[in-house]
């Protein structure tokens, strides 16, 4: 439907006007990238061998791709939908002739599109200059990696939407949001690759949707896993996107049924 394209394009344009915020974000992402790279390299140096199947260059690449994905997947969470529920602005969304989640997803697509270019590419450039990046052996890793990044953005959006939709039942959702952020940052493999976890924690992470948000796209794009393995990861991402979409949609339905729109 062209409405979603229009909305996504307008949101892309909107974000492209936030130049100072973008520059500040790029700077922060890059500095934290340097810190994280130093820590991982020190760990690898101390162990004197590969950890969890990562060479030094792959570990550095892991960090830079993670820093690049940070903004597009909005790893620190969003508050828009939850705030709209809390203030009753959600009533306006419900009066639009388009499904609530689709409208917000279209905005997310526009936003993520800009954040991939504006906040995603610069940290990679810093990585190339500072440590170099490990490039995949198979050319298939590129299209699969890009597809996996797109799916990671979708899965993150849906999980974040579910957290936000809890506002239908929780008046105060900040605690829940912080908890989600901590768990997501850890189990997605954003802080360190999940293959570095103790095996019980890695097994736990693998039965959650979180690795689909960070670990899978980074591994697929960097070529640390083969294209065949990447395909499995992409299949899992699609599965999670489907499950989360059903949950989010059920929450919208249940929430609007119980909705008592706040305020006049």
């Amino acid at each position: 439907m062209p409405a979603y394209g229009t909305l996504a394009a307008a949101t892309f344009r909107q974000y492209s006007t936030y130049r100072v915020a973008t520059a500040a974000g790029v700077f922060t992402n890059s500095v934290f990238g340097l810190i994280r790279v130093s820590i991982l390299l020190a760990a690898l140096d101390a162990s004197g061998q590969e950890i969890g199947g990562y060479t030094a260059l792959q570990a550095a690449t892991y960090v830079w791709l993670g820093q690049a994905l940070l903004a597009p997947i909005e790893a620190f969470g969003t508050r828009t939908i939850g705030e709209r529920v809390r203030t009753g602005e959600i009533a306006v969304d419900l009066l639009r002739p388009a499904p609530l989640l689709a409208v917000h997803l279209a905005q997310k697509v526009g936003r993520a599109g800009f954040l991939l270019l504006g906040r995603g590419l610069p940290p990679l450039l810093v990585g190339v200059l500072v440590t170099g990046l490990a490039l995949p052996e198979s050319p298939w890793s590129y299209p699969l990696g890009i597809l996996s990044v797109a799916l990671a953005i979708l899965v993150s959006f849906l999980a974040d939407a579910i957290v936000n939709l809890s506002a239908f039942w929780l008046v105060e959702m900040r605690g829940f949001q912080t908890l989600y952020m901590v768990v997501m940052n850890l189990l997605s493999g954003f802080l360190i690759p999940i293959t570095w976890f103790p095996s019980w924690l890695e097994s736990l992470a693998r039965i959650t949707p979180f690795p689909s948000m960070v670990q899978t796209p980074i591994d697929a794009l960097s070529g640390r896993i083969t294209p065949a393995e990447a395909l499995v990861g992409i299949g899992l991402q699609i599965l999670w996107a489907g499950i989360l979409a059903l949950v989010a949609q059920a929450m919208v339905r249940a929430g609007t049924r119980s909705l008592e729109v706040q305020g006049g």
Partner: protein
Amino acid sequence: MTWAIDLQNITREFTVRRPRRVVRAVDDLTLQVADGEAVGFVGANGAGKSTTIKMLTGILMPTRGTVRVLGRRPVPERRHLAREIGVVFGQRSQLWWDLPLRDSFAILGSMHRLAPSAQAARLARLVEGLDLAPFLDQPVRQLSLGQRMRGEVAAALLHSPRLVVLDEPTIGLDMISKEGLRRFLVEDRAERGTTLLLTTHDMADVERLCERIVVVSDGRTAYDGTLAGLRDSLRTPRELVVDLAAPLGVLELPEGAQTVAVEAGGIRHRIRFHAAEHSAAALLARITAQAEVADLSMAEPAIEDLVREIFARRP
């Protein structure tokens, strides 16, 4: 008769926690609005106006009773209904806060699947009628309240809805903005024959825009009829103020009319009378027979006073 809005005995209760109790916001309300009618929906804060609007737009389920809007059941058919109605919540915004106003119209137009040429023509009409051109390219967050409200109304009317629901559309606007908005709403209704339901605290909105007024109190209909009828039925006196060319102590008045004040040393006389008993013209003729009238004005009772009186009379 086809009803644009048909509410039959609707009740909406809310459960309030701590202390646990049930609040009845709307209580057995019945309201029918014919196609093309313009209805002012008036009541004190908490009378149940907004709750009723939420039920008829499909964002709130009635606890009991049936709701039909343009022949549809609002809650299950909310998105279908959204294509045929235009809603402005004066306290909320349907525009995209960070995008230029123009973008909101582009997005809404494609959401409503308007043909590009039809959308351009309609938007041109709205831009002209609501004077949007000066700020069409500004982000909504930078607009003044009056500008944003004109934008909100344009957004609600863009898809030429059959039913327009305006919830406090003039709240916080200055006189000139209010008047501009009302003038356009009157024009647009005249052109398209839209049904209008308007809630407001500003009685001038009702007087300018509506033929029928429904007063709600405690979730029930307290009055349903014309504004003039409301005044008559309550027999609220009208007040005629005449300034005489030369001072005069006492004016002879017909029975039923009375002088309530003589000011400025006999120049200004305030006279109360009931519309049912005397016409203002006859009264004036009687006065001009006694003295030369330099100036005169009529004060209509404010609807707030009428509404207050209805509430006071309720058992």
